[in-house]
């Protein structure tokens, strides 16, 4: 089974491209179906977060390049974006690279905030949707199950997740460079998603007292407001609250910006220039980039928060190294499983083919051996079975050994045939015999013969 990953993330593509390729949680299932229909792939999982859009695919026949081409075409069709606009910003990883990449992502090693745990939940959700939509089978199920397991393991067995510097931390960091005392600041949350919640929680931990939450679904706004000790407000009234808010965290699922320069101009007039700190963690972005032109307005989006987070995450090299080692181990373990699984059908087919040959030959012989007793026939049956087992045994052993090797090598047909049937090359045999002749030939000829046989 060929495994391929096609995607892009914050290292490869600017936010303008990432937001065009992103999929909101609400549309994940629909996009997955659409991808499967357009790309004609047997197994598929779509992971879309504010930092990445990745498609994991598996197919028994398609090569990695064929899968990449069909995924790129499907993405282009699905998002109405010419492939030339984003193809060069995609990465394509296959087999072990794809596995390692997913394991690094799930561990938070590839996140802006190294060690952040939220990605684990996002991957779990992506996998759940893929299972519901029946776009995953044995390979991707095993891959994602192992990924979730390693993500959890790294969280519990390393300190990577502890004290990680998240987007929320970065927001607090920045807010503290604008406002003297966060306890006096008022926060407005737009969109009651997980990201908003985590960011707002960080601000609340830093003594922010007044929090307003606006969401299209008022109930969700109420739930989040209750968690944060804030107040839910009707979504359509949020512009009124901009005047009294100092920090705005926006993470709605709106496909277009909900806040532009023209909206903020009257707000800033009413605020009489009081600073307004905008944190846009939505993808696609909620706030137009040109609001930054306004005096006393400080806008930070996911990409601009990256530098702060990256800077703070640098000092955790020991935990990162430990997590990387675990990722490597798990990648190797998965690859062994996958290759043994890939070899299983071949082993079965070899056995089945030999059995067919044996049965056919027994059928031909049947008439000629009518004079034999049942006991004698059973003995022949056993002998032919043993013969077939002897013939296939070496081949099966070699196939299994090959699947467990992480550095498979290429064999010529002759080498492969010798290997599968346990026949050593003539030169090698001569060498062995010569070695024994010169040094190790025992006085006992039987013993020598035994050694050579071995």
């Amino acid at each position, binding site marked *: 089974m060929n495994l391929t990953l096609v995607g892009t993330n914050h290292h490869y593509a600017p936010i303008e491209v990432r937001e065009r390729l992103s999929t909101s949680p609400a549309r994940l299932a629909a996009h997955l179906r659409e991808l499967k229909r357009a790309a004609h792939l047997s197994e598929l999982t779509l992971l879309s977060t504010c930092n990445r859009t990745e498609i994991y695919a598996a197919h028994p026949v398609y090569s990695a390049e064929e899968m990449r081409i069909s995924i790129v075409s499907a993405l282009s069709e699905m998002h109405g974006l010419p492939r030339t606009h984003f193809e060069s910003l995609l990465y394509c990883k296959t087999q072990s690279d794809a596995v390692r990449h997913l394991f690094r992502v799930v561990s938070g090693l590839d996140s802006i905030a190294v060690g952040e745990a939220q990605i684990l939940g996002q991957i779990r959700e992506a996998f759940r949707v893929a299972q519901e939509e029946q776009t995953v089978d044995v390979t991707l199920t095993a891959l994602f199950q192992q990924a979730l397991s390693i993500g959890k393991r790294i969280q519990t067995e390393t300190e990577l997740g502890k004290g990680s510097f998240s987007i929320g931390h970065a927001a607090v960091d*920045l807010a503290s460079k*604008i406002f003297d005392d966060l306890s006096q600041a008022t926060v407005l949350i737009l969109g009651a998603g997980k990201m908003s919640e985590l960011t707002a929680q960080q601000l609340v931990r830093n003594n922010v007292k007044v929090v307003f939450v606006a969401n299209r679904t008022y109930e969700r706004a109420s739930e989040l407001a209750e968690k944060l000790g804030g107040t839910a407000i009707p979504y359509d009234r949020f512009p009124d609250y901009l005047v009294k808010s100092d920090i705005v965290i926006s993470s709605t699922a709106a496909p277009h910006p909900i806040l532009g320069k023209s909206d903020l101009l009257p707000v800033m007039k009413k605020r009489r*220039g009081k*600073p307004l700190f905008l944190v846009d963690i939505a993808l696609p972005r909620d706030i137009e980039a040109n609001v930054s032109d306004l005096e006393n307005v400080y806008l930070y989006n996911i990409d601009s928060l990256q530098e702060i987070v990256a800077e703070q995450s640098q000092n955790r090299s020991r935990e990162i190294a430990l997590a990387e080692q675990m990722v490597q181990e798990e990648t190797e373990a998965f690859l062994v499983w996958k290759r043994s699984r890939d070899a299983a059908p071949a082993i079965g087919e070899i056995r089945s083919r030999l059995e067919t040959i044996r049965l056919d030959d027994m059928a031909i012989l049947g008439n000629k051996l009518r004079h034999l007793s049942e006991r004698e026939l059973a003995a022949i049956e056993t002998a032919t079975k043993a013969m077939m087992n002897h013939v296939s045994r070496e081949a099966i052993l070699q196939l299994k050994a090959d699947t467990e090797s992480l550095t498979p090598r290429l064999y010529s047909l002759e080498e492969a045939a010798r290997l599968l049937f346990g026949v050593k090359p003539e030169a090698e045999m001569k060498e062995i015999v010569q070695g024994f002749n010169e040094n190790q030939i025992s006085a006992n000829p039987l013993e020598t013969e035994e050694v050579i046989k071995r």
Partner: protein
Amino acid sequence: MSVLLTLTSLLLYLFAAGFYGTRLLLTDAQEKSLSVPRWLVRVGIVVQFFAIGAYCITVKRSPFAGMFGTLSFAGWSIAVAFAVFELRLRVGVAGAIALLCASMFLFRALLFSGEVASTDTVLRNPLITLHVAAILISFGLFVIAFAASLLYLWQDRELKRKRVRTAFRRLPSLQTLDKTAWSAVAVALPLMTIGLALGMVRVFGTGLAHTPAQWFLDPHTIMSFLAWGVYIFYIGARLGAGWYGNRLQYILIIGMALVLSLTFAPSLPHRFV
């Protein structure tokens, strides 16, 4: 003696300014490194206090009997104002600018160190002493406001450019800098007003100026009132119009430019030379 002590203070202020400036630009500067410049400033203030005292004993007059004493007092008032604000609002990095300004005043004072103190009896008047002292202390505070406004604009630029480098980390929050500038002006402006009023009382009470026009057309008076007007506008813009942010900082920079120009625009009625 006073020259030597002033020179010592100048060096101490310069070192402290260097420390603060370095800390602002270097990533590996430790928090404890702040105590070094803090003590340099404190020692500098004490040394300069004795320098001014020594000068007063030497000339047997107030420090404002000559440019040396006046400029030395101006530098001292900047250093004292900085030390107070550093202690209260922890705006150490402002020292990189404020102490440089204090050093400039001291350097200029040293250029007048050979000058003979004025024997003009007008300068013996306590009203004049209070007039000059009040105005110079207000200058010291305006320098703090100026330093805070420059740092505000710097921090604002870093935030706008999303450059979270060393300076961003070291600079105080915008609100702290704004509060620093505001507090400095809020104290300095009444002092300046008192200083100007005392000067006017002295001028018109004793007939130093023959006509009001003669007094008012004096460049020093014009610049003083212009500076005063700018700071009044700052207070009004902030309290009345509720201005906030960069605009206010630009007003403070204009105000500082006028304040500094006062040093370079002495005129005869003020009898500094």
